[in-house]
């Protein structure tokens, strides 16, 4: 386009007269260039307007919309600037930023609170569930015992869980970045599980038309609960056996945040290589270490530890108590037994260490205490006993002493009644004689009764007695004269009775002889009675003649009563024409019934 100010060539030589400001010239110019000039001016104005801020302001929104629709170049170009701008803005005026994002924060906070409340409600539900069970009662007891609020006890027990696996998953691709599991748990397909977890998350998100950010957070399969904690770059998924507590969720969140912070560069460059995330392994394994609730573990360990040393101690204590009780029982049994023993009086009894110490009185005739204690199982080597002798008036000891003093044979028994000692049984004439003549009775006995003791003759004397009583002085029919042939028999009877009398006399006994006179049945009764008396007198007289004291014999004329038996009539008649002898030995001073 020609420059309007450039002068046209001076073809007509009018240059000197040319005045650009002249009216004619202006008219000419208007005629020639007017329309174009106006167009030019308009274009210039438009251009100036477009290049001014006002023009840009009008067109910028349209331009941005157009470009954003085409590709993401603009967003990429602006991102760093916007980041810087926001950073700067936050630094300079945090209050305004806070105000600005409050509408965003509000719902987020509300959401967090709602989740916390849900966890609390869950805890309360569990508590209520356990309140009326046996376990609940146990926990109540524990709360009461330890002075801890019941709710805390419930939570302590309820929150038992075990984090079995932790996955760190790349959010966009679902690829496994890090997997942590205890060595004993063989997991070979963690990468597939990780992909599937992501797919399920997507599936749930898609299926239920969740808004952005609304992700599947937790799902349970039997005893297992999978907690999925989503983050912008990665997802942390924990497989938990049992009841995961709310604290676990917080822990996972913290771990996830740390991972995002520490591995920001690795996330930015991620293209399938998980190696840069290896350092996060330890962080994930830390989550595994909370195998059980700390409190629970500690409490359990505490209880176990207590048991470890307490159980043997209790057993030992029980054994000691048992031994002590057994010893105590043996001791008290021993003391009781000794106290009950006649002739033993315990003044002092004590047990120190293993030694039993006794002080007291003991009748010499009492049982030996050491023997009694040994019979009770006591160790007599550790027995320290001193007994002072004394005389006991216990009936058993009184009789024992009497037996000793009287040298009583075993055939004599004693019975003490009051202060009278009754002797019973049988003893020799000599013993009875000695006993009755004892100058002093043992203590506790004032009287001795020997009347119940049968006095036996010594064998020699018994033989004499038998000899006498076996003799029979026979007479002729109707005669009371001692036949010469019978005198020898009568003489030996006399000698025997003299010896017997002498022997018993020495023991304080007198020997009496009864002469039993008989007659045969011929003749009258009166005749026979008289005849039997005559025969007795004849024999008695003869005995007196032999030296027997007249008062030592007595006659019993039986007549025909109490006849002796015989082989036949003649023999019986002969046997009953006789005098027989009965010997009676009785104490000299005793009443007539005497010893039997």
């Amino acid at each position, binding site marked *: 386009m020609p420059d309007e100010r450039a002068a046209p060539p001076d073809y007509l030589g009018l240059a000197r007269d040319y005045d650009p400001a002249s009216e004619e010239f202006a008219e000419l110019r208007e005629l020639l260039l007017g329309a174009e000039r106006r167009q030019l001016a308009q274009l210039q104005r438009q251009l100036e307007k477009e290049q001014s801020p006002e023009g840009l302001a009008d067109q910028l929104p349209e331009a941005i919309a157009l470009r954003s629709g085409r590709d993401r170049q603009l967003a990429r170009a602006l991102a760093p600037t916007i980041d810087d701008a926001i950073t700067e803005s936050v630094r300079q005026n945090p209050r305004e930023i806070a105000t600005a994002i409050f509408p965003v924060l509000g719902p987020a906070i509300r959401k967090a609170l709602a989740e916390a409340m849900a966890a609390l409600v869950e805890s309360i539900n569990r508590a209520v569930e356990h309140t009326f069970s046996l376990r609940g009662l146990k926990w109540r007891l524990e709360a009461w015992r330890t002075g801890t609020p019941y709710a805390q006890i419930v939570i302590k027990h309820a929150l038992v869980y075990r984090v079995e696996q932790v996955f760190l998953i790349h959010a966009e691709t*679902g*690829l496994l970045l890090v997997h942590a599991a205890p060595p004993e748990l063989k997991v070979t397909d963690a990468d597939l599980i990780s992909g*599937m977890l992501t797919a399920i998350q997507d599936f749930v998100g898609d299926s239920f038309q969740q808004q952005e950010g609304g992700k599947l957070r937790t799902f349970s399969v039997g005893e297992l609960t999978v907690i999925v904690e989503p983050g912008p770059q990665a997802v942390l998924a924990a497989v938990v056996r049992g009841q995961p507590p709310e604290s676990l969720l917080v822990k996972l969140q913290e771990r996830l945040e740390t991972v995002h912070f520490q591995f920001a560069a690795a996330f930015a460059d991620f293209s399938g290589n998980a190696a840069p995330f290896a350092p996060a392994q330890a962080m994930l394994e830390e989550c595994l270490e909370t195998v059980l609730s700390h409190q629970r573990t500690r409490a359990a360990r505490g209880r176990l530890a207590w048991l470890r040393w307490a159980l043997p101690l209790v057993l030992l204590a029980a054994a000691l108590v048992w031994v002590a009780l057994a010893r105590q029982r043996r001791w008290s049994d021993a003391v009781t037994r000794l106290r009950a023993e006649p002739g033993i009086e315990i003044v002092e009894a004590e047990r120190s260490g293993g030694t039993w110490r006794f002080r007291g009185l003991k009748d010499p005739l009492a049982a030996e205490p050491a023997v009694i204690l040994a019979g009770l199982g006591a160790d007599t080597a550790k027995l320290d006993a001193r007994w002072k002798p004394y005389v006991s008036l216990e009936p058993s000891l009184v009789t024992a002493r009497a037996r000793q003093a009287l040298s009583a044979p075993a055939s004599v028994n004693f019975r003490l009644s009051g202060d009278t000692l009754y002797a019973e049984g049988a003893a020799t004439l000599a013993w009875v004689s000695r006993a009755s003549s004892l100058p002093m009775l043992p203590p506790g006995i004032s009287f001795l009764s020997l009347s119940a003791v049968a006095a036996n003759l010594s064998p020699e004397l018994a033989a004499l007695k038998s000899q006498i009583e076996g003799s029979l002085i026979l007479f002729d029919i109707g005669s009371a004269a001692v036949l010469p042939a019978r005198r020898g028999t009568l003489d030996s009877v006399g000698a025997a009775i003299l010896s017997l009398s002498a022997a018993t006399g020495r023991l304080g006994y007198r020997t009496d002889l009864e002469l039993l006179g008989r007659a045969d049945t011929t003749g009258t009764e009166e005749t026979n009675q008289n005849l039997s008396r005559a025969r007795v007198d004849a024999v008695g007289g003869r005995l007196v003649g032999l030296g027997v004291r007249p008062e030592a014999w007595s006659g019993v004329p039986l007549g025909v009563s109490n006849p002796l038996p015989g082989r036949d009539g003649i023999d019986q008649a002969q046997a009953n024409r006789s005098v027989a002898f009965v010997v009676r030995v009785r104490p000299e001073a005793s009443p007539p019934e005497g010893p039997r």
Partner: protein
Amino acid sequence: MIQKKVCMVGVFGTGKTSLVQQFVHSIFSAKYHSTVGVKIDRKVVDIGGTSVGLVLWDLAGRDASEDIPASYLKGSHAILFVVDGTRRETFDQLASLRELGRSAAGDVPSMVALNKADLTGEWVLGAREEAALTSQGHWLRTSAKTGAGVEEAFDWIARATLGEAGGAS
């Protein structure tokens, strides 16, 4: 080990699952397709001494009633489109599947497996279709039945995710 997410996309019945069944490690049953809509398998491929773990997202085939969830494609490092060479409509839908892949995963390497290559008698794709495929990127004939082309397909995919495959689009 480097891991890559690979999505297998195709119309219902193109044999995606059969394609991988013999060649991958799987712990999930096929019923995941009807429930979650995806089954995840693993295939480790050795590329010049480097092991690449392909995490294969075997997406349920698209049918008339149900579209493929785009969220499953998100973050893929590569996409394997599977076409049934005996059914023309599975080829026709390739364009829209490609578009789905691009919108969800961005410009990631992809290839097309023309499956059921063993059924030559029923093959309906001609030179024109193959030329069209060639113009759009890499493709291979595969047969889940004979195994032909399968290893090569995964090998190509693995290389592509590493940025080594020629002709990656």
